[in-house]
């Protein structure tokens, strides 16, 4: 087995680094710039593309993939979380002073206090949908919650952002998959969107100009109890739409895709699950099952669930729901010891993450500390396969470049089978 794709697609058994393939396995653009400069890939001042503006993730180009030994490449629909497409690039500068290229629709305004406002679909004639505090590195959604009248709530209002994939987008996706498949040897991780039930990052709908329904984050969480039927109906409709889209997408791209990012809904917090297992089984599992069952029956795709936090109590249900891959494997959360996770679930699921703690070690530790932790995680997760090395969620801004390089060097040096 010599190619990246072969390594990853061999039942996802080997430790292989993924970087930037999805919105949760990426790197903040300031850090990408720093890395490219350190590796001598660009002349100073060469801008980096922002491929995901909400989290300000930077493009991981083929030369960086080569330098780091990355085996996975991402593909997705051409739209961004703010509803504009990744096209028509223009110059911008981050608060950190990094020169970047942003999409044409990345239209911002500065507040008097220096905060940056972002607009849905780049339309500055409507209220802003995102805010980056002055000196910040990412955007957060601005909650635009219209008054709620429970007598008039209509599930279609919470479905505006879910619809049939336009034919143009489908053709674009098909072209991009084909290009990645034929021009690279990487395994392809696809994020088609539409099947993330209750993804709280998407509930405020930063890409819609005038969102309706339940859009406030706290109100959404409360609604999972007080408006349970309403939420269930949203998911039912969303699932119908999602399945129809997957059928069309499969017709267009076939099995060139190795992995599909199905959901990014966070079910864990730092100290425990966000919701009870009963609530997961009631509200989410039926729909995860439908999506995963369809995928396993009709395609060779592997199913990927992203859930931050302490989720050990929910993993048996995730496995029963048909997920093949768990991400980001937040070992810094409670009850997420890598060895215990591997022992208990390693024969049934692939761990795509867990490679290094991005809350403490990577940003605040020493290079030596990073090397030690990465080696430890390779030993914990690697044996028997079922492990794709990745950081725990995106590499944040302000991470010492030396630490990022130490991570990848250690993966290269220590991440060969048999693992020591």
């Amino acid at each position, binding site marked *: 087995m010599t190619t990246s794709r072969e390594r990853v697609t061999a039942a996802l058994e080997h430790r292989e680094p993924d970087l930037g393939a999805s919105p949760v396995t990426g790197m903040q653009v300031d850090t990408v710039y720093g890395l490219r400069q350190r590796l001598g890939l660009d002349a100073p001042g060469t801008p980096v593309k922002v491929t995901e503006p909400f989290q300000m993730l930077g493009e991981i180009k083929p030369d960086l993939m080569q330098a780091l030994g990355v085996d996975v490449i991402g593909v997705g629909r051409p739209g961004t979380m703010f509803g504009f497409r990744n096209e028509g690039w223009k110059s911008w500068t981050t608060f950190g002073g990094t020169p970047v290229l942003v999409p044409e629709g990345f239209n911002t305004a500065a507040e008097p206090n220096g905060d940056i406002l972002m607009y849905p679909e780049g339309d500055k004639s409507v209220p802003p949908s995102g805010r980056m*505090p002055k000196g910040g590195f990412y955007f*957060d959604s601005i909650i635009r919650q219209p008054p709620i009248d429970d007598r008039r709530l209509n599930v279609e209002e919470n479905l505006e952002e879910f619809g049939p994939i336009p034919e143009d987008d489908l053709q674009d996706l098909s072209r991009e998959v084909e290009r990645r498949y034929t021009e690279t040897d990487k395994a392809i991780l696809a994020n088609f969107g539409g099947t993330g039930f209750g993804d709280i990052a998407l509930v405020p709908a930063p890409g819609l100009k005038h969102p309706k329904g339940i859009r406030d984050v706290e109100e959404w*969480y*409360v609604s999972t*109890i007080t408006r349970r039927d309403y939420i269930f109906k949203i998911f039912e409709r969303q699932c119908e739409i999602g399945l129809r889209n997957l059928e069309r997408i499969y017709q267009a791209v076939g099995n060139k895709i190795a992995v599909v990012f199905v959901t990014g809904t966070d079910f864990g917090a730092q100290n425990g699950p966000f919701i009870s297992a009963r609530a997961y089984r009631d509200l989410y599992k039926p729909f995860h099952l439908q999506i995963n069952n369809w995928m396993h029956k009709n395609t060779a795709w592997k199913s990927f669930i992203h859930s931050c936090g302490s989720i050990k109590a929910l993993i048996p249900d995730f496995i029963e729901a048909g997920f093949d891959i768990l991400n980001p494997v937040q070992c810094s959360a409670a009850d997420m010891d890598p060895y215990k996770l591997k022992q208990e679930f390693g024969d049934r699921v692939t761990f795509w993450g867990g490679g290094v703690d991005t809350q403490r070690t990577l940003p*605040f530790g020493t290079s030596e500390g990073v090397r030690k932790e990465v080696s430890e995680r390779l030993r914990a997760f690697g044996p028997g396969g079922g492990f794709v090395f990745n950081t725990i969620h995106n590499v944040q*801004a*302000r991470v010492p470049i030396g630490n990022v390089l130490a991570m990848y060097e250690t993966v290269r040096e220590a991440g060969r089978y048999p693992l020591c």
Partner: protein
Amino acid sequence: MSIFEELQQAIIDGKAPVAKEVTDRGLKEGVRPSEFFPNAIIPAMDEVGRRMRDCEFFIPEVLIAARAARASTDILRPLLQGEESVKPAGTVVIGTVKGDLHDIGKNIVGMMLEAAGYRIIDLGVDVPPEKILDAVKQHDANIVAVSALLTTTMVNMKAIIEALVAAGLRDKVKVLVGGAPVTDAWALSIGADGYGKDAPAAVELARKLAPSA
């Protein structure tokens, strides 16, 4: 069931309209506003905290319980000023640190502290140190509670403590910190008085570090 038992149950069950109705009924029956706290609201939220610790309650259950408690305290707070013997357990200035817009955790902490009898001055999100200082002085606060969700913003917690020191207010307040990337060790390293890993822990910490007179 007594009024207090009814209110406790309404709060634990997260039934805000019931909590409001029971509170109104209790007041009409002559229960003093201050009596609701030690006999119903505080034990109810302590029970909510216990259930959260024991993984019986999760974020949605805690949120609706806190809202039910607030439905009661919103009625009672204006009436407490008429009771001279009633003092809040303490005054807490709460917010998320400069640069951080994530406030669900902070809101839950604020609601639970309020239900525990504290006066809450909620400064919201993205709060610069000087705004915290102003609020401490204006409201004579004895507790500052700040949270951060991001590794890139938690570093701003130290600036709050430095500002309190520079203003000569450090000995006047206890500083509690929390949020996903925050730890005991971090709290210690920046000179905070305590770290609360969740909302019930924040309440316990407030009671321990700044006991009411």
